[in-house]
């Protein structure tokens, strides 16, 4: 796992730097909602990671290396979670710096939950279909995420009388649970494809 993560960090150094600049820009200019937008981009990180492996044909070599099958997919999830966490933290920092006090934008946690759910759904599909079709999946995921966040916002606004904290907590729990299941599905799908 350590080696694979190190490889992804070294190969995607430039992409990660660009991502960092984007998050800082959005977080500073639009606070929480800007950071939420940057969070949506976190799903692109595994797309990039898989794309780099496919382009160099490293995906052919990987199943022959002493790497546990689960680690081959887990590092893509870790990449996505890392970007999501970075965007969330910088969103909070940006908002707090602007307000002059620690502020948790009401958008941040629902956005984290929506991104987690979307990652859980889209990553197995990326592993199944590869990067070319994966990019299309990513575009669809962005649209779905925006829709989900809007729907979650309506619920939190009180139209359906659901307490905001409960709903957010439930969505976060669902995101975590779905990610756990998603990793297992991805492991089967991805390595099934490679080792057919």
């Amino acid at each position: 796992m350590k080696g694979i993560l190190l490889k992804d960090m070294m190969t995607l150094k430039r992409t990660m730097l660009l991502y960092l600049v984007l998050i800082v820009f959005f977080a500073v200019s639009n606070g929480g909602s800007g950071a939420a937008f940057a969070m949506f981009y976190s799903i692109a990180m595994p797309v990039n990671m898989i794309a780099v492996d496919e382009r160099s044909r490293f995906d052919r070599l990987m199943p022959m290396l002493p790497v546990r099958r689960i680690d081959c997919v887990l590092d893509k999830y870790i990449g996505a979670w890392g970007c999501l966490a970075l965007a969330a933290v910088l969103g909070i920092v940006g908002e707090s710096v602007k307000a002059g006090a620690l502020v948790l934008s009401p958008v941040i946690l629902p956005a984290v939950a929506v991104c987690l759910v979307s990652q859980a759904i889209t990553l197995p599909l990326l592993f199944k279909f590869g990067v070319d079709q994966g990019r299309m999946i990513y575009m669809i995921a962005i649209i779905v995420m925006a829709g989900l966040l809007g729907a979650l916002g309506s619920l939190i606004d009180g139209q359906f009388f659901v307490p905001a904290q409960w709903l957010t907590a439930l969505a976060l729990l669902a995101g975590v649970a779905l990610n756990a299941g998603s990793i297992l599905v991805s492991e089967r799908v991805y390595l099934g494809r490679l080792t057919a």
Partner: protein
Amino acid sequence: MNAIELSHVGKRYGDFALEDVNLTLAQGCILGLVGENGAGKSTMIRMILGACRPDSGTVTTLGCDTANADALADVRQDVGVVLDEACLPDELTAAQTGRFFSGIYKNWDAAAFDAYVKRFDLPPAKRVKEYSRGTKMKLAIAVAMSHDAKLLVLDEATGGLDPIVRDEILDVFNEFTRDETHAILISSHIVSDLEKICDYIAFLHKGRLLLVEEKDALMDKYAVLQLTEAGYAALPAGCALRVLRAHGAVQVLALRALLPADVPAGHTAIEDIMLLLTKGDAVK
């Protein structure tokens, strides 16, 4: 313990089928795997490394049944792999590639890797994607040789290398098997390379293993003759195994032991034996 054992292995992909393959590679030996494109060499190699599963039979690598995925992940620590392409992350430099693999292999030997980088004259600061194909392959070989592997699996690893570099790489492989606990499985279209270094030759044709023989025995056993029709007709019964008629000449794969004394049979290249085995007609 054998380095590799395949027992009654079968695998089907659409029209292609690898059928009832039985093969053993003992420690301390180099086995050359030859066969035309699509014969099943790479499929066999992928099964040996656990990257695909046989439909039938068993594959054992360094004593581990490849069906046991978790145990095999540990066994792969002792296997060096080079495929027909480098398949290394191409955004990395040679030095970064070394750092990456130090996180993959427990026995990674950074000093050995650096020595190979120098020996193969690899530019340490250039990114892999800027390398020529030959240089990429040398880097892949350096990686495979730098983690104290007991088994090297090389699938067309010398393809794309010029003859001088190939010779140097073959020396490296020969050095590797001086340790009697080491073994190499190498597939190559460059049969002359295999002739130089292999102890055994396995010949795969259309998914079937036609022969596995000790290289010297193979060359002692068979002769490839260029004869006229009259010369061919004069051969004793049972001597000719395969015959190929082209451009007015008759090429014959014959058993040396049954050749008449007046029929000259010099050195026989393995490539010629393979050609006759695949393209020649069986003599009844």
